[in-house]
């Protein structure tokens, strides 16, 4: 069986950044396993710009952003296997995978970094009633058909869900010659970035119908039309508000789900809110030496944050491998004995946090605690409580579920509270 120090599952933005970082941290034996025929992941079909403002201080397209990391990985001589599907990972970190060339094979890893990304929620998950004709696609599938294959899914589209991919596809379909009649959003607010609403809908005069959903689908072979209706506060359609839209295409942008089937089977504990692994400050899961980053951990809006998180995961995995491989166990013993994990809890207005436990003795000088809020709040404060004491209070003009939030924690601050039981992040009124 071939042995590697670090095996990374997935060669998208998270896997690549983790690989580069692990290699730069001095680990020579790094392997990336990618199921697609090329590296870059979903960025390859994101041909619009807006990527990299944080990471590179310039505006890149998705493939360009991925390209920077792919080049770096090549420069560093990082090994990768393409068209390779990982079937399972044992708790002992034996990775079983399959591809054309190597057939079915197993690898022994010292550390594993999970970077499988996410998938789109499908129509079935929403239980939208009606027929099941051709012409109903998740927005990402349509994006692949248009941007990678050059085919238009249809001519007249309605989009359900105002997640970023849906918004981006509203503009893309329009640019390629289709008519987008409306974007319907179940919630009273959009799930996408503000800039995408302006640049993808408003600039093209595409109506955004908030608090609306699809309640019927017509067409036995190809889609003929959909019925939209307004919904009440509990998401139930309001009778009398039905409106029929003839269209041959319905795109769904109704949420992304981290792909953790392999993680779950190997015994990684998942957070039911994010559907991603529960991790500590090192992005390490409950299984020692198994790390997670990117959309498999929690769904991101900005790839820049994925890269940042993945780089940290890669660095931490490298440090883990070095500690575990060293003949002299002194460093490992000190590490294992140092500090203890304190849980991070989502407070009022916060849906989840990543990480959800922190050992101050194991973190770097600073750690960005990422989280999402459960609604739109204006002129509010993001507060961090250490048990009963509020230690951080930051003013925010507005926060919304569509934009991931972050707050910086100092190790020094944490170390001043040795008896800390819990950290809590909350949204408080202004």
């Amino acid at each position, binding site marked *: 069986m071939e042995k590697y120090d670090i095996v990374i599952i997935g060669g998208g933005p998270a896997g690549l950044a983790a690989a580069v970082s692990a290699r730069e941290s001095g680990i020579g034996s790094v392997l990336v396993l990618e199921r697609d025929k090329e590296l870059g992941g979903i960025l390859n079909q994101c041909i619009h710009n807006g990527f990299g403002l944080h990471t590179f201080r310039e505006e890149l397209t998705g493939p360009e952003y991925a390209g920077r990391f792919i080049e770096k990985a090549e420069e560093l001589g990082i090994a990768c296997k393409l068209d390779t599907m990982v079937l399972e990972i044992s708790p002992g970190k034996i990775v079983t995978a399959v591809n054309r060339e190597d057939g079915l094979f197993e690898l022994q890893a010292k550390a594993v970094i999970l970077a499988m990304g996410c998938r789109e929620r499908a129509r079935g998950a929403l239980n939208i009633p009606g027929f099941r004709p051709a012409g109903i696609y998740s927005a990402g599938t349509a994006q692949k*058909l248009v941007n990678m294959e050059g085919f238009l899914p249809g001519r007249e589209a309605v989009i359900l869900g105002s997640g970023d991919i849906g918004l981006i596809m509203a503009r893309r379909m329009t640019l390629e010659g289709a008519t987008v009649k409306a974007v319907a959003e179940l919630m009273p607010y959009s799930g996408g970035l503000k800039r995408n609403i302006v640049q993808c809908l408003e600039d093209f005069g595409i109506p955004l119908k908030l608090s609306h959903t699809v309640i019927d689908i017509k067409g036995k072979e190809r889609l003929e039309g959909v019925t939209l209706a307004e919904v009440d506060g509990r998401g139930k359609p309001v009778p009398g508000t039905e409106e029929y839209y003839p269209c041959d295409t319905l795109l769904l942008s109704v949420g992304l789900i981290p792909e953790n089937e392999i993680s779950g089977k190997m015994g990684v504990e998942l957070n039911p809110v994010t559907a991603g692994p529960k991790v500590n400050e090192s992005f390490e899961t409950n299984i020692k030496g198994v790390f997670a980053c990117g959309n498999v951990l929690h769904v991101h809006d900005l790839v820049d944050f994925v890269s940042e998180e993945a780089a940290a995961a890669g660095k931490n995995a490298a440090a883990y491998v070095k500690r575990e491989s060293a003949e002299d166990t002194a460093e490992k013993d000190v590490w294992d004995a140092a500090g203890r994990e304190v849980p991070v809890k989502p407070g009022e207005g916060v849906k989840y946090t990543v990480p959800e436990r922190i050992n101050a003795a194991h973190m770097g000088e600073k750690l960005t605690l990422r989280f999402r809020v459960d609604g739109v709040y204006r002129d509010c404060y993001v507060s961090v409580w250490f048990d009963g004491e509020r230690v951080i209070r930051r003013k925010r003009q507005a926060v919304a579920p569509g934009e991931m939030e972050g707050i910086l924690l100092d190790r020094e601050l944490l170390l001043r509270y040795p008896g800390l039981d819990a950290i809590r992040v909350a949204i408080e009124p202004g």
Partner: protein
Amino acid sequence: MYDVAIIGAGVSGAAIARELSRYRADICVIEKEEDVCCGTSKANSAIVHAGYDAATGSLKAKLNVRGNRMMGRLAEELDIPFRRNGSLVVCRDEADFPELQKLYERGMANGVEGLHILSREETLAMEPNVTADVYAALYAPTAGIVCPFELNIALAENAYVNGVEFRFDTEVTDITKLEGGYGLHTGQGMVRARYVVNAAGVYADEIHNMVCEKKLHIFPRRGDYCLLDKAAGNHVEKTVFALPGKLGKGILVTPTVHGNLLIGPTAIEVTDKEGVNTTGEGLGQIMEKAGLHVKDLPMRQVITSFAGLRAHEACGDFVIGEAEDAKGFIDCAGIESPGIASCPAIGEMVAEILKEKMGLEEKGDFISVRKGIRKPGMLGKEERAALIREDPAYGNIVCRCEMISEGEILDAVRRPLGARSLDGVKRRTRAGMGRCQSGFCLPRIMEILAGERHVSMSDITKSGGSSYLVNGTNKDTF
């Protein structure tokens, strides 16, 4: 002129075709859709019922019990998944216990083996997720689950290999009585046959009424279903029914033979024979009722919902036999539940009728065995590795949710009566049937289909007809 023309390539038509292909005869199957298994056969509970539901002495009872007994061997011959997981009918109220007792007695009278009534404790020990307020349950160990697509497809493939001709996209619009047979008018010209078998599902009344004065009336009765992720597949081990009501067996909860959890069906009378649209009302009923006899259903794990139509004939029983006023015209109508369970016996019965009437002789070279698509995921590591060495396409995973390889998809397209559409591939291989519902694999399967069939991506359909998946290319209108 054919000896026999079978109208309909659903599970009944295919079972009849396969049984008839044991004999020396020119047989063709005429199907209005682009593939086999496109009507009632593709959207049902996929249950091989034990046989205690139907009235004693009815064709439904007789053929169900016989079909159930035949299914094990048939599944082996055709290499299709079938599992006798057993079923439970849950009675929650002591007042309803006599009804459960009646089912038991009827089952005994119908010849169902192994039935017994379980106490509350016995039921919960057998199936812990049955509602805690269960009073008693009827346990039928012979009930099973099957893949209805594979059953239908395998029967048709085997019939084809044994010489039966299949004509797809061919709708029978009228039937004329000819000298010594019938002329079937179709969009693709006239098909002549000495004998006609009417296995047209929800349309069996219309086909029958084209030649017979004594009319049949099929009332389509829609059943909505929710299919849950494989993560929920172990929620119950047995097929769990509520005590039957007037319109059917009520909402059931069952594992599927592939490891998903299936919940349904509703029973809603409709007029449209193509009306397989789910409705908010129907899906709402499932949510509401399924939880009554099985607890803690993880409804957040629904990956798709669908509906099928039961071909309910006014008389309430299967209508099988030569029409009174049309010699040589054999009906196989009203095949609703337990149609899947009964199909092996239906095939046998119709073949017997024709054998007698036509004096058919057995072939010496009937091939009873069919090999299914090789499934690398079901093999051990060594065997799987060997298969990939032999054909690397089995190492290329196309559908990541169900882990279906390119090799399986190519086999589905290239084999006898191979897949021509996305749904054809899906029903043969399960590619696209998983939790992402073909979000990732759709473009790749389209490419494989286009390559294999030497057509453009624009010609690929979801399910034949005008169900095209793409409509033009970028900027082609500018």
